């Protein structure tokens, strides 16, 4: 992350200078900062709503039931997480909301899952294997019906806007399955997480 952050900013400044767009790049800092706060604040209400709903779902045992249904899959994907952890139910809800294209609901559910996964995490500042798997599932963006895209196509008068559904579903499935496989491969070969705080502090110093 350190390198990507550095790389993005340095490249932008160099390319901006080469293209004579340096003032746009500088303006983008302010606009980006403002946008970040706008995005975060626009999340507050919907986040509160779904976190409230999720609490009811959890207390009523609904999350547990969903977790049980999906257990054969999650057991393999999240083998470090105890089977009875509420994280499994949250992950299942997050995946279902994503698949249905309900991103407003999916994000709070995913963040709830992250909170539960953090309880099982050995090193609180570094991503656990389970977290990387959840992120792989989310960044791949699996979705059954691309509603927004279809709306745009209808807007410009496409005769058959639904013809993109099947190809999109095929592509999104390929990307989703690849993400899970890649995460599993990295889980095996990437240097394991350090649980000893002293070594992680040394690493942090090195990274900084």
């Amino acid at each position, binding site marked *: 992350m350190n390198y990507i952050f550095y790389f993005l900013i340095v490249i932008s400044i160099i390319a901006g200078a080469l293209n004579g767009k340096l003032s746009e790049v500088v303006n983008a800092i302010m*606009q980006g900062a403002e946008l970040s706060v706008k995005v975060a604040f626009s999340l507050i209400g919907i986040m509160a709503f779904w976190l409230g709903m999720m609490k009811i779902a959890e207390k009523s045992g609904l999350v547990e039931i969903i977790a049980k249904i999906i257990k054969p899959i999650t057991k393999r994907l999240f083998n470090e997480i105890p089977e009875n952890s509420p994280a499994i139910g949250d992950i299942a809800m997050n995946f279902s909301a994503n698949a249905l294209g309900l991103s407003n609901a999916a994000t709070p559910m995913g963040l709830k899952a992250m909170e539960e996964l953090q309880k099982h995490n050995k090193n609180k500042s570094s991503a656990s294997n389970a977290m990387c798997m959840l992120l792989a599932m989310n960044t791949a963006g699996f979705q059954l019906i691309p509603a927004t895209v279809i709306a745009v196509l209808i807007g410009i008068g496409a005769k058959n806007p639904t013809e993109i559904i099947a190809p999109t579903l095929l592509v999104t499935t390929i990307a989703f399955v690849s993400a899970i496989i890649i995460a599993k491969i990295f889980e095996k070969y990437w240097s394991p997480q350090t649980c000893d705080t002293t070594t992680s502090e040394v690493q942090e110093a090195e990274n900084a």
Partner: protein
Amino acid sequence: MLSQIMNAISLWALPVIILTILTAGLFKRVPLYETFTDGAKDGFKVAVGIIPYLVAIIVAISMFRASGIIEMIENSFAPLLAHFHVPADTIPLMIVRSLSGSAALGVFSDIANNFGPDDYATKLSAVMVGSSETTFYVLAVYFGSVGISKLRYAMLTGLLADFIGIVAAVSVCNLVF
């Protein structure tokens, strides 16, 4: 027919989920109102907590997009990608879709309006946008919410999967359209 089913799913998904949660809560005698407000309290905390991570990512990406580098990449890769029947106008979309969801939708609307609904470029970009999620945003929000700064292989996984998604989109569209 298919589009009717699709619309019905989009329309009913949320109401059905909300009704199921509330009814299950009522049956199990969960104090609905108290439990809801108790859970909702965290909404503010989570949203405000992710601001530092969002600022880092969104500012860097805004600078990247303003610098004109995406056009530079477009120009240098256009001849190579033309071999795979990739229209040059869809190249910015391949980069932008991992960086910003609203920008990706903007680029797609542009292409759709310029080329019309039946053009290959429109269909290819529709598939590319419909099958992607904004990798950088998801990473910032999810890891930011629990204060994790060392992502290990999560970003590489996301970007590799995005790349596979682009290759898959180009191949599938070549076959289908």
